[in-house]
């Protein structure tokens, strides 16, 4: 049994007893009058505070603030703009106090992986000829980062503008850096670097002292500006110690307080990047988008510390510019969801990359968010919530919509649908309406509890509960104010969504248990979505890409029809000319050799371009990793054009793999190397650059 063995194994991992003794001696020596252990708050005062705050929460929230116009059809979801800090304090304290501190055992069922996969999203939208079928190519003969929506760019660990590659790289000796490479085929080379951290045990240091190279770093190149976004721990600007003293050491920031940091560099001279400015916002990085020259950054700020009513910075998120003190968001920039799941904010900021002296605007919503979908004019943040009342344990997704215009972020509306959202691809805006695909879990927890009791007389109740235990899939259409317009529900009982893709008035999504139905839904009448077909296949697609007119590509896993056990990598090309009868045009079963691909959970690992006949993606065999390139035609199916070995010095370390084409050259990045291949000459290798040197 895994659990037992892992625990046993860990018992053998012990520190050196002498080192522990040394530390304990230091601990004794350090002890002064004041206790260094943990203390307790006066218990009685605490209990009273809970009672008062909890009641207040119920009474005031729906009545205060500026209520946005919502129809009665959506009574539960009225987001309100805060009228004053006090109202926000009340809400936050209430959430902190009722948050369940007791351990709950989480069942192993989990949710489907966040198959974060995207392709360039424009392939079909009505106009398609083979030449314009895939806009990864753009107009410039190179492939851009694989983003979901045309005109809405997404960040990545390595990016290109068709002339240069900008790649994150790190090594123990050299520290972490951004490498700028001139992408010139055989003579590709590093032209400059931006150092982000020293090597060694000192860890990462700052650029300009304002932030630390941290977790989940990602880049944009926008004209002559290079933008780095990372989740890190901001120093100095947040006085968080008990006595209020500001300290320069970032580790005195209470653990759990992440900050999302943005650094902008001017790379007009690619060989001499110049630091321009850095900004930050409270919370861990959720996602970002760039529209034109505006960066929208969404973070999640969890209020870890106990809120102090007269100190808004303890319960309201802040923004930071350079090394200046943080600026707490004003109450009018704060909104409250009617039923926030926890004391957590979603913070949305807008920044002009060409003039990053400060954020253009910022907003925060008290309520959590897990996924971000952005259209060209709106951001939709979807957060999961579990109901507490009669439908206890049932999952809902709250959606908050912000309008985006030239860096201005405004709260628009909020809405709610049953179920959980898998990833950004499960949402899509079309003609002002939001379409969203969710999986509603069956109420398994309650079913098991009732069955476990086996009390006579409750048998009928338990039988009913067990029947409710099946998950189902639903597609919901909400209007511009996130009011319900139409829906199609209770699809694919017992399964959950594995991937989705929208194409104007059509939605495709894949559910799976043992067999994968690919659903095709006609949404041309927004109020009446109609399932046109449900094509069943073994295995499942985790990433769907609109390949060309009438062709939908699926990358995923093959599986045994009876047991559901996955059997390796599979490519599927669906024929979607006739929505009422979607069929499989061709399949490639690669499981003999290739087990998995990063595309399953990272859409940016896919390079798909129907016009150039390129389907590129990393794949793992049992012992090695490769970058594969396939071509496709209806006549010959999937044809392997290249199988490029990815060199890995260290098998145990994970790295993101990316591929781009620029002209006839294919560039493959694997974290430590950029290798260049000639697509016009059977992918012969032209050269390679070591990014860690």
């Amino acid at each position, binding site marked *: *049994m895994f659990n037992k063995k892992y625990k046993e194994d860990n018992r053998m*991992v012990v*520190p050196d007893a002498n080192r522990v003794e040394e530390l*304990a001696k230091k601990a004794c020596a350090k002890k002064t009058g004041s206790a260094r252990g943990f203390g307790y708050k006066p*218990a009685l005062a605490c209990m009273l505070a809970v009672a008062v705050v909890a009641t207040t929460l119920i009474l005031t929230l729906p009545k205060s603030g500026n209520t946005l116009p919502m129809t009665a059809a959506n009574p539960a979801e009225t987001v309100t703009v805060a009228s004053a800090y006090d109202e926000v304090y009340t809400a936050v304290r209430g959430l902190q106090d009722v948050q369940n501190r007791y351990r709950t055992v*989480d069942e192993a069922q989990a949710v489907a992986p966040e198959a974060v996969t995207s392709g360039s999203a424009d392939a079909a939208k009505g106009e398609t000829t083979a030449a314009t079928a895939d806009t990864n190519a753009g107009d410039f003969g190179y492939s851009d980062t694989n983003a979901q929506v045309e005109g809405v760019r997404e960040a990545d660990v390595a990016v290109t503008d068709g002339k240069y590659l900008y790649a994150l790289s790190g090594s123990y000796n050299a520290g972490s850096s951004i490498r700028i490479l001139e992408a010139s085929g055989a003579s590709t080379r590093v032209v400059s670097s931006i150092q982000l951290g020293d090597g060694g045990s000192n*860890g990462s240091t700052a650029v300009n002292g304002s932030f630390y190279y941290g977790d989940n770093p990602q880049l944009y190149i926008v004209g002559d500006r290079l933008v780095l976004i990372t989740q890190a*721990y901001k120093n100095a600007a947040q006085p968080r110690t008990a006595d209020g003293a500001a300290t320069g050491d970032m580790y005195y920031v209470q653990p759990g307080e992440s900050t999302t940091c943005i650094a902008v560099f001017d790379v007009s001279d690619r060989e001499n990047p110049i630091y321009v400015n850095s900004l930050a916002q409270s919370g861990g990085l959720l996602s970002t988008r760039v529209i034109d020259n505006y960066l929208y950054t969404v973070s999640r700020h969890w209020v870890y510390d106990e809120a102090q009513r007269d100190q808004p910075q303890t319960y309201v998120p802040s923004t930071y510019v350079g090394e200046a003190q943080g600026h707490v968001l004003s109450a009018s920039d704060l909104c409250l969801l009617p039923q926030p799941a926890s004391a957590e904010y979603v913070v949305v900021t807008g920044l002009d990359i060409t003039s990053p002296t400060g954020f253009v605007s910022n907003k925060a919503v008290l309520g959590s968010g897990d996924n971000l979908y952005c259209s060209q004019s709106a951001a939709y943040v979807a957060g*999961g919530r579990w109901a507490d009342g009669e439908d206890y344990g049932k999952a809902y997704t709250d959606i908050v919509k912000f309008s985006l215009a030239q860096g201005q972020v405004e709260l628009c509306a909020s809405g709610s649908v049953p179920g959980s959202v898998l990833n950004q691809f499960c949402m899509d805006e079309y003609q002002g309406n939001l379409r969203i695909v969710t999986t509603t879990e069956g109420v398994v927890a309650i079913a098991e509890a009732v069955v476990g009791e086996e009390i006579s007389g409750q048998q009928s109740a338990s039988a009913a509960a067990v029947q409710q235990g099946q998950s189902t899939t639903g597609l919901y259409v909400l209007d511009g104010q996130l009011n319900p317009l139409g829906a199609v529900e209770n699809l694919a009982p017992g399964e959950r969504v594995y991937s989705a893709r929208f194409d104007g008035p059509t939605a495709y999504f894949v559910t799976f248990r043992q067999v994968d139905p690919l659903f095709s839904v006609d949404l041309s009448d927004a109020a009446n979505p109609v399932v046109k077909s449900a094509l069943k296949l073994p295995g499942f697609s985790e990433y769907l890409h609109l390949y060309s007119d009438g062709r939908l590509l699926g990358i995923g896993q093959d599986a045994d029809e009876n047991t559901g056990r996955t059997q390796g990598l599979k490519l599927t090309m669906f024929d979607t000319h006739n929505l009422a009868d979607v069929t499989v045009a061709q399949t490639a079963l690669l499981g003999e050799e290739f087990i998995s691909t990063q595309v399953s959970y990272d859409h940016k690992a896919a390079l798909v371009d129907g016009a150039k006949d390129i389907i590129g993606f990393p794949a793992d065999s049992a012992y090695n990793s490769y970058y594969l390139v396939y071509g496709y035609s209806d006549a010959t199916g999937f044809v392997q054009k290249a199988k490029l070995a990815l060199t890995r010095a260290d098998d145990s370390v994970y790295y993101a793999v990316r591929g781009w084409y620029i002209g006839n050259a294919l560039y493959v990045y694997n974290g430590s190397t950029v290798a260049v291949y000639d697509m016009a000459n059977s992918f012969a290798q032209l050269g390679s650059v070591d990014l860690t040197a």
Partner: protein
Amino acid sequence: MNQQTPQPLLRPEEVVYKYADMVYRLAYARVQSATAADDVMQDVFLRYLSHKGRFVDEEHLKAWLLRATINRSKSLLTCAWRRKVVPLTDTLTTQLQEKSEVYWAVMQLPPKARTVVHLYYYEDYPVREIARLLGHSESAVKSQLHRARALLREKLRDDCADL
């Protein structure tokens, strides 16, 4: 905050004795080297000793230590992208680790997945708490777990009945 009676205070050296193993094990799972894990452990406890804030209760302290371990080992991870898994002979303890293939399979996971697996299966933290520790959403943690389980199932066909 939910306690009705005051908890006895742990003396600093008691904190060290009680939590050294926990910190070391999580650090080791992340940085995969006894030396580096030792560095992390030192760092974490030294910072704990200079910590000026008060902890609400022992849970808070424990979470602080885990979070600090994650932070501190994170900088080692990002600077040491290519750190190799240290062979069995390089340990600071005299007890030889005869770890099963389960442990090595976990060590082959990507760093975030290893962390989540360790906190879930060794520290028995529920998803909600892991999400708080890591500053991620619960669904992000769940999908990490899901992915990790899938990867582990591939490697450990026999040992994974409960994954």
